[in-house]
């Protein structure tokens, strides 16, 4: 078991900065999710921790030991590849037994541990199958069993659920979380699925173009994004630009006031208000409060209904509510409102996303 420390870690491929100056600490036993768009450097971070590529700068410590120059073999890390990388010539049993076999463990111990690991991922009875004879979800679970069977210090998972359909993915997510908690193993999970990140992690780091945009608990990252990129990447967000009126809120160019806390922001400085759609309430046109708007689109999502609105305050606004809660048809004139505590203010310097 061990904590991971990144100390100014950087990786360049020629002109491409795959990872820029990453400094952070992942405490022992934490489930950390790395979230970011395609090409943002997620896989590269895992490869650096696993020792598959050398960093071009900085140090990586695992359990206090500097592993920057250690071979992958010496790092005691279980890695599940984006493509699973199961050995096609070995059956499920011998795939999972591989890390034990190369360590020269006795046969009986191998048999016991492999059986336990396969039971853990609910694949008992599949031991003699070849990887090609398994479904994507089963292969993913074999890869997972192979990665933890030798009790590594750290588990690295590169989009392990990417190939699964939604229902299976949700099942495996629950299993994965339970497994990680039972083993108490420090885990880095890569995903570009924000729901997966929010539901599984103790903390999330959000990456863009190799640079860390924010690190925090799912709640922090969702409710108090560090910048517009994070706000936009984790679900939908209403972004309203204006100028700060200290102690009162944000004054929009159209004259409306968005009431909210303005902690420490200077009077008159430009800022952006972030409001999540599910915090936006739709009111009748005659209501005395809120911003006037017209319903442009009505999107039915099953458990949710979402409205896209043209507002008098400038940009498009989005509201969402559990189906049956709100009522509005396309073309209706409404007013939208939200509570001051549901507004998160981003100061001007947090506007630019990536460096």
């Amino acid at each position, binding site marked *: 078991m061990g904590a991971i420390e990144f100390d100014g870690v950087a990786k360049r491929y020629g002109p491409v900065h795959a990872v820029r100056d990453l400094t952070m600490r992942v405490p022992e036993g934490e489930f950390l999710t790395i979230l970011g768009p395609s090409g943002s450097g997620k896989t590269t971070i895992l490869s650096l921790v*696993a*020792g*598959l590529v050398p960093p071009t700068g900085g140090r990586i410590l695992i359990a206090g030991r500097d592993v920057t120059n250690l*071979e*992958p*073999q010496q*790092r*005691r*890390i*279980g*890695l599940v*590849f984006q*493509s699973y*990388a199961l*050995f*096609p*010539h070995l059956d499920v049993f011998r795939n999972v037994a*591989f*890390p034990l*076999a*190369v*360590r020269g463990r006795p046969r009986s111990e191998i048999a016991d541990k492999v059986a336990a690991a396969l039971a853990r991922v609910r694949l008992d009875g599949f031991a003699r199958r070849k990887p090609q004879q398994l479904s994507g979800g089963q292969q993913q679970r074999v890869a997972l069993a*192979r*990665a933890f069977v*030798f009790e590594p210090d750290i588990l690295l998972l590169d989009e392990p659920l990417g190939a699964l359909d939604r229902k299976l993915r949700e099942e495996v997510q629950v299993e994965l979380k339970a497994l990680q908690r039972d083993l108490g193993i420090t885990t880095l999970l890569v995903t570009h699925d924000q729901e997966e990140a929010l539901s599984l992690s103790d903390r999330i780091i959000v990456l863009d173009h190799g640079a860390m945009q924010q690190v925090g608990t799912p709640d922090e990252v969702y409710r108090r994004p560090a910048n517009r990129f994070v706000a936009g990447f984790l679900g939908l967000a209403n972004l309203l630009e204006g100028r700060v009126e200290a102690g009162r809120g944000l004054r929009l160019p159209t004259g409306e006031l968005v009431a909210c806390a303005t902690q420490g922001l200077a009077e008159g400085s430009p800022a952006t208000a972030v409001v999540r759609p599910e915090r936006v309430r739709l009111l009748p046109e005659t209501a005395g409060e809120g911003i006037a708007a017209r319903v442009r689109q009505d999107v039915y999502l099953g458990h949710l209904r979402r409205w896209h609105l043209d507002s008098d305050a400038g940009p498009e606004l989005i509201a969402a509510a559990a189906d049956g809660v709100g009522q509005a048809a396309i073309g209706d004139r409404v007013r939208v409102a939200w509570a001051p505590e549901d507004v998160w203010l981003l100061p001007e310097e947090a506007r630019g996303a990536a460096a």
Partner: protein
Amino acid sequence: MRIGRNAGTYVVPLLVLMVVAFDVPILLMLASSVLAPHPTVAHWAELVESPIYFRVLGNTFQIALVTAAVCGLIGYPLAYWMRGLGGRAQLAVVTLVLLPFWISILVRTYAWIVVLGNNGIVNRSLMGLGLTDRPVSFLYNQLGVTIGTTNVLLPFLVLPLFAAMLKIDERLLQAAATLGASRRAIFWRVFFPLSLPAFAAGLVLVFILTLGFYVTPAILGGGRVPMISSMLDILINQMPRWELAAAISTLLLAVTLALYGVYRTIAARAA
């Protein structure tokens, strides 16, 4: 399906040509081992009863086996080394491996006589180094034949093997490394098993090609290393015993087809 049928009709004339021009003569020739001059098993009986033919067959198999083994011992490390090379160096080496294909087999075979002869560069170097005081006889024996066939057939093993090695997913080797396997263990537990089907297929291919090889063994063996192909030459051109040659050819074809079956089975597993 429509496309398939249309394509089929275009191919029919070619197919007829192939059958009439190639397959029918071969079958007639093979049939002569039991039909000429009238239905008989006499030629087969003669083949089975005279030990000389089986000695030649045995000798041929032995040379084919040695050639396949030597090709394997040289070819596997060569292909492995080529796989690890960078883009440009790799292209250069592939070209070097292919180069012999563009030089006539006769030229290459006679070149070996110059190189391996009593006054050739090899013997002069050996004597110059004091490793031997009489020339070593490389030519007109099994050693010479094996050197020649190995030289000609090596690319048939190396190129497909190299292609198969390139297809092995680098991430499998990385996965093995993260799971704690040493370089040695990665090679023996992952890389070698994954390359084995292509390797085995290459060995069988070289073996089959050696069985029927004529030019190189004839020249480098100088008539002193009997192989099936040179025996057929004698039976047809000097005896002439077409019926017996047909019987031997039938046997050779059967063995080759059986081996080809093995080759296909292995190659299919490799793909």
